[in-house]
């Protein structure tokens, strides 16, 4: 995998995804190894994302790498009107790998064409956030023992939620059953249903999930944002339907785990936090192991 970039989850085959998850598992057991010693990683955050940036920087630091970059484009040359092309051209000669987060959709693919070093997409607008998807997959596999034959509930904003879209595209490699629970206005776009149809996978759409929750292996919660609704009254009607509470978890499967890409607002009630089925904070920690594995894979470093 020389000078290979990770821009979209589709860039990696099922086998390559599994290799990264296996490597992430090794980092979890043995977190410190100076594999990135002598390497410089650029972290270019053209829009602030504290969680993702800290996770990457923690992964780089744990591997002994050095970091150059910026956390907010308002303090960089971008405010002077520099194009993305020029920024990437310059950074390309300073770093061994570039991590980029940028508000424009497709910016990471474009950066990967300009750069000679590998590029990792840490989020390009509403398009892709593949390292989130890999850490989600890692969390699913770790809690369920396998990725095969799971029943996944995806809840909330299924129309605009990029984490949902990427995770379902990736989970389509395995024999997954999907239950999509969303308000009418935020239903999953047809292109993803067509993809599942062509993969021969079963999926069901619902407006509510309190009556079917006992079937779930994974509940993947996302935020339902008020600004997504054209009619504020519609938001008021549905806003409490997509909130998970501890009382709903009584008759659920023992292996059920609740995932959320974070940050949450009110869609998971704090009374769920102490339930052993709540997994979203461990999920965030898994991001560090997964990102360590991604960096080492793209730089072709073995241990």
């Amino acid at each position, binding site marked *: 995998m020389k000078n290979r970039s990770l821009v979209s989850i589709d860039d990696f085959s099922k086998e390559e995804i599994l290799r990264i998850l296996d490597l992430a598992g090794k980092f979890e057991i043995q977190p410190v190894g100076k594999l990135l010693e002598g390497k410089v990683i650029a972290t270019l955050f053209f829009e602030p994302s504290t969680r993702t940036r800290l996770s990457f920087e923690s992964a780089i630091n744990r591997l002994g790498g050095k970091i150059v970059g910026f956390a907010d484009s308002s303090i960089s040359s971008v405010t002077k009107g520099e194009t993305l092309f020029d920024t990437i051209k310059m950074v390309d000669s300073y770093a061994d790998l570039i991590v980029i987060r940028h508000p424009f959709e*497709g910016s990471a693919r*474009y950066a990967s064409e300009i750069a000679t070093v590998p590029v990792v997409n840490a989020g*390009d607008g509403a398009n892709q956030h593949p390292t989130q998807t890999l850490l989600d997959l890692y969390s699913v596999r770790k809690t369920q023992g396998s990725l095969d034959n799971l029943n996944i509930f995806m809840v909330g904003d299924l129309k605009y939620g990029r984490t949902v879209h990427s995770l379902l595209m990736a989970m389509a490699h395995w024999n997954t059953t999907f239950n999509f629970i969303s308000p009418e206005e935020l239903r999953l776009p047809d292109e993803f249903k067509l993809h599942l149809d062509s993969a021969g996978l079963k999926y069901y759409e619902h407006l509510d999930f309190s009556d079917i929750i006992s079937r779930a292996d994974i509940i993947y919660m996302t935020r339902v944002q008020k600004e997504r609704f054209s009619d504020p009254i519609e938001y008021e009607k549905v806003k409490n339907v997509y909130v998970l509470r501890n009382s709903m978890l009584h008759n659920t499967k023992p292996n059920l785990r609740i995932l959320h890409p974070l940050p949450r607002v009110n869609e998971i009630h704090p009374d769920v936090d102490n339930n052993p089925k709540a997994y979203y904070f461990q999920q965030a920690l898994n991001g560090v192991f997964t990102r360590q594995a991604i960096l080492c894979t793209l730089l072709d470093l073995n241990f």
Partner: protein
Amino acid sequence: MMKGGKQQLVVSAIENGTVIDHVPAKSLFKVIQILGLDHIDNQITFGTNLESKKLGQKAIIKISGRFFEDNDINRIALVAPEAKLNIIKDYAVVEKRVVRVPDHITAIAKCMNPKCITNLENVTTRFLVISKKNIALKCRYCEKITSEENLKII
């Protein structure tokens, strides 16, 4: 100029070159632009709003001394999918070719996503053609799909 007594040639015949026929009248200038005909020195004649049973109103372009590669000519498929090419040598049609929608489209179409990098920085558009019958293009960058009804030629 009369031919066979009845048919009238609206634009004059060429000795050597290419005749692009069955171009929808509304797409004439887009075809000229896509093929860069407005920047070459060859003699070009064209007619538009000509009667066509198939298209209603068609346009025809005759380019003297110029022959096209398939890759070049397929670029007009988005705006003139029915176009036919007559390759002329010594006033005779020596070959007829049809236009095929290519698998990839570069620098012709505009991505319909206003948040796409190609609409916000100076980036050449690139698409994968995911449907050729009802044209659907997947942007290489933002991965959004631009369908025929939203298609704009740059």
